[in-house]
């Protein structure tokens, strides 16, 4: 695998040729556009030092899932080849992002700036509507949860216990209900919510306010992962601003604006910092953690919408999901469904809207991009990320967060929408933050590294996950070191099947994610694994039967 010295010399030639390759196998529809990009965007100049670093990485066992920050910053393309269907970014309206603006100009959007640029208009409009019509609007928009599972948000809201109304049309008091915002973004390779919380916290807060109003929730908690110190601080500052400006607080939303429900509606909002466990991103574990207990997922049923935080009905939404709400309410569901794509399956649920996609790995310009759902992975990598790093060949990509499985070399054209799971044999779209691997990546090490992550993050409640994840890691470690045998490979696959993929074997989906990741990697790169293991010889004895004797 070591081709450092000779390649160094023939760097230029190699670059030329590899540049040519993608164009040849580019999809027919995207061909011309791709060509234009490549001409217009200037390539990053790779310094000698960078090459050295890369060489080191290639030799090292560990696979880096984090983009190399030291890379030369590419400049903004002169001609923008790719536009969103909405014409302009929605979630990243106030956050400069490639390919629309240079991220150099990013700054925390303050309350004043947010309002100046049309903020809190969605909330104002929502408050003028009846709560149920807000829910109905969200339901019609088919906004699917951006946290990974893609469950329709509007539908989730309707699972809350129905409220009775008396003769005069006044709703009964719903009692304590809670909104928990899942900002525990711990999936390796995923950094989309961070962008929102980092620079546009009021967008999130506005979404929270709308959700609370629609679901008649008076208390919202933002559960933010422990490692997001800065983001928690930004959010807290923003919440303070929001309280000062009457968005939240005892007077009612938007300073006590009369609502379509009748009278003002007050919401309290709190930030709760986690202690840094991946499992707390699981919704019921998140609730346990919010209650101050150990983050162990709960058994379902009862579902959180019936009995959640502190035993009360609770809605749990992702940061990005609620960030979509202001624009949906403001522009209407019909506007929202114009973006993204419909499902290609009959009666399949559509993937409307835009999505933040954080691309990392071996690409030239890793980062967070806002794209319409349904964008092919190739477009995302070749256009937004300006191609594979060093012009190398695409080998695979983790679909979206490592628990979703891997897209193989033949799945470069995969469209990033919620149908991806059924189409390309991965668990699902996940967070839509692909980690891209180039041809030099050691997939055995990738599998081992992923197994290590899950072993470390398994909460230890269910037996199969607690014990299986450790075993899987040890087995993959042995295979990586070259001490494995073919029967170990079979055993690895068996564990990766029995540990959680048999539905219901564990309480939450962590084991399932572990399985999907490891199983899809082994299945899609089986040859690479087989090259590492020594064969197991099964002794075969020819038995001459009793008949032959007699």
């Amino acid at each position, binding site marked *: 695998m070591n081709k450092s010295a000779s390649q160094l010399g023939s760097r230029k030639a190699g670059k030329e040729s590899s540049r040519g390759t993608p164009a040849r196998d580019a999809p027919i529809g995207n061909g011309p556009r791709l060509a234009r990009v490549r001409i217009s965007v200037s390539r990053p100049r790779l310094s000698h030092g960078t090459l050295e670093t890369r060489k080191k990485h290639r030799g090292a066992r560990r696979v880096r899932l984090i983009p190399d920050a030291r890379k030369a910053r590419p400049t903004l393309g002169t001609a923008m080849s790719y536009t969103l269907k909405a014409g302009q970014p929605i979630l990243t309206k106030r956050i400069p992002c490639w390919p629309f603006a240079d991220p150099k100009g990013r700054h925390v959007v303050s309350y004043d700036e947010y309002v100046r640029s049309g903020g809190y208009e969605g909330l104002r409009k929502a408050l003028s509507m009846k709560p149920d019509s807000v829910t109905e609007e969200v339901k019609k928009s088919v906004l699917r949860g951006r946290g990974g599972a893609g469950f329709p948000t509007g539908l989730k809201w309707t699972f809350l216990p129905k409220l009775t109304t008396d003769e005069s049309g006044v709703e009964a008091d719903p009692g304590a209900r809670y909104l928990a915002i899942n900002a525990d973004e711990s999936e390796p390779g995923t950094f989309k919510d961070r962008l929102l919380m980092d620079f546009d916290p009021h967008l999130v807060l506005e979404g929270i306010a709308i959700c609370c109003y629609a679901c008649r929730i008076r208390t919202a908690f933002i559960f933010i992962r422990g490692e997001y110190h800065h983001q928690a601080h930004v959010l807290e500052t923003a919440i303070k601003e929001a309280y000062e400006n009457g968005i939240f607080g005892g007077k009612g939303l938007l300073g006590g604006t009369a609502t379509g429900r009748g009278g003002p509606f007050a919401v309290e909002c709190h930030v709760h910092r986690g202690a840094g466990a991946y499992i707390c991103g699981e919704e019921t574990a998140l609730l346990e953690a919010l209650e101050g207990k150990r983050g162990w997922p709960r058994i379902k049923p009862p579902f959180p919408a019936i009995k959640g935080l502190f035993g009360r009905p609770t809605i749990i939404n992702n940061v990005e999901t609620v960030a979509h709400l202001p624009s949906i309410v403001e522009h209407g569901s019909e506007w929202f469904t114009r973006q993204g794509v419909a499902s290609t399956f009959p009666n399949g649920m559509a993937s409307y809207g835009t999505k933040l996609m954080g691309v990392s790995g071996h690409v030239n310009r890793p980062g967070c991009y806002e794209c319409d759902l349904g964008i092919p992975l190739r477009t995302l990598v070749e256009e937004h990320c300006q191609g594979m790093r060093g012009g190398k060949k695409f080998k695979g990509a983790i679909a979206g967060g490592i628990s979703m499985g891997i897209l193989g070399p033949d799945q470069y054209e995969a469209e990033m929408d919620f149908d991806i799971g059924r189409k390309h044999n991965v668990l699902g779209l996940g967070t839509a933050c692909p980690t891209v691997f180039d041809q030099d990546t050691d997939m055995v090490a990738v599998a081992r590294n992923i197994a290590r992550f899950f072993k470390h993050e398994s909460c230890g409640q269910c*037996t199969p996950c607690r014990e299986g994840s*450790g*075993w899987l890691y040890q087995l993959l470690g042995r295979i990586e070191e070259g001490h494995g045998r073919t029967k170990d490979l079979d055993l690895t696959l068996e564990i990766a099947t029995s540990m959680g993929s048999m539905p219901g074997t564990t309480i939450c989906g962590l084991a399932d994610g572990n399985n999907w990741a490891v199983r899809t990697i082994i299945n899609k790169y089986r040859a690479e694994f087989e090259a590492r293991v020594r064969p197991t010889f099964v002794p075969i004895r020819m038995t001459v039967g009793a008949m032959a004797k007699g």
Partner: protein
Amino acid sequence: MSSPTPTITINGVRRPFSPGQTILQVANAAGVEVPQYCYHDGLSVVASCRICLCEVWSPNPRTGALEPFMGGKLVPSCQQTASDGMVVHTDSPKAVANQKAVMEYLLINHPLDCPVCDQSGECFLQDYSYQYGRGVSRFQEEKVKQPKKDLGNHVLLYSDRCIMCTRCVRFTREVTGTGELMVMGRGNKEEIDVFPGIPINNELSGNVIDLCPVGALLDKDFLFQQRVWYLKETPSIDPITASGDNIWIHHNEGKIHRVKPRENPRVNKWWITDEVRYGWKFVHSADRLGAPARKQYGYPAQSDFPRAYEIAVAGLRRAVEDGGRVALLASPMIACEEAYLLAQVVREIDREAVLAVGPVPVKGSDRVYPPGASEDDPRAFKVHAEKAPNARGVRRVLEALAGPGQVLDFEAFLRAMGKGTGSSGVRAALVTGNYPSAWTTPELLGCLGGKFIVAIDTLAGPHVDAADISLPAATFAEKSGTFENARGMIQSFERALTAFEGARPEGQIAFDLLHLIACGGEYERAGATRPEVYDAADIRSRMAAEHETLGVFASAVGHPAPRPQARPDMRLVEI
């Protein structure tokens, strides 16, 4: 469609159930074996061991056709409530594959130290790996090694062996409400621990040892004492407190090795206090009386039963002939039947004998667990401050004989014996003890002076030395009988051991004395007659027949439930 009583079908057999029961509860009640680690009737459900998963089909509410429940997922039977018409398979290929997988996972980090583990023989992991596991291990990697920890006065933790069922953690949170135990760490490095400096020393701490399905939590007291397959178990009743906790006595070769709680939802649920658990030690005390003794030249001298009995009967009779009264101090530690027979003995000699109940020790005040729970809460566990098992039963029996209000308590007995006044009509007394520790008070000793005293006791003490005749009695483990607990429940217990050396149950001593009295006080006149043999059940029916007020002893005695028949663990193979 729906039958009057809802039924579910488990492994092909229909079982009725009451709404709200989980599948596992129905299966357990019906005797269908479903493997289970983390589930316990007395604790909340966490469904974390995942071995009880089963395949469930349920009828479609519209069409009535059977459909895979929850989309064909395996369902934790401990958590899923049963619904009418469900069809449950715990032996389908899918369920069995899961059982096998879970067993394999549990065993990969479990040390192979069954030979030195105290739990082996009653270990769920052993049983299930025999029944549901695979014969060989495919795990070649290093096992996770974890330390041995001292958790408290009675509890030792071998973290290695723990399977993280968290039963113990839930116990300390839900039953005792003290929450000493916790889960530390994550994944396969996770372990049970206590907070540094706060050991598990609550009153019920020993129960975590019983709860542990494997050998992770062990009893320091029982550590390495016996292999459990040597132990024989006998149902019994807590002999030292008024709560009447149901217990199992585990004994071998005439020695008690440990006491375990016996499930009784109406009394002690699944638990016992540490006091009861380790309260059997006096049975094997070095101070046990092993032979009768009589006073000779002012000092006790070893004697034999016939001689001691003759002197006792003669002494008691002489007291009556001298115009004095005979008194009986029936200890609240003896069984109801024995109190009845002893009262008969004194009443045989003196029709108007003084009957009294011995001192009832009280320590502290009553406590309810979890703290703050109501006593009537079905999950609450009450610890009684009264440290005598049968104060009510003895009084009930004596009152039936002497009439209500005629039975003295200990204070009144002392006064009747001449405390303070120095003069008393009582000339002789039969004093019983059987307390787990020394109980004689100076007042009692003072009162006993100058009278003819027959002491029937288990442990040596000043009043035994002072007695004219002392007879060795048998402890609760060495006899059968009934105790009435603080709630007025009469419960019977059985004999576990043969009596220590020459000791005899008080009931037998009473029969012997009655026999001798009937023979006129001399064995020479006994001829071929023999004393009756003490049999608690027999006396209970006699008591009920002779006294209307003692009818409860025929109708309302709680007997130990028969142990469910264990399935043979090897099937007979037809050859």
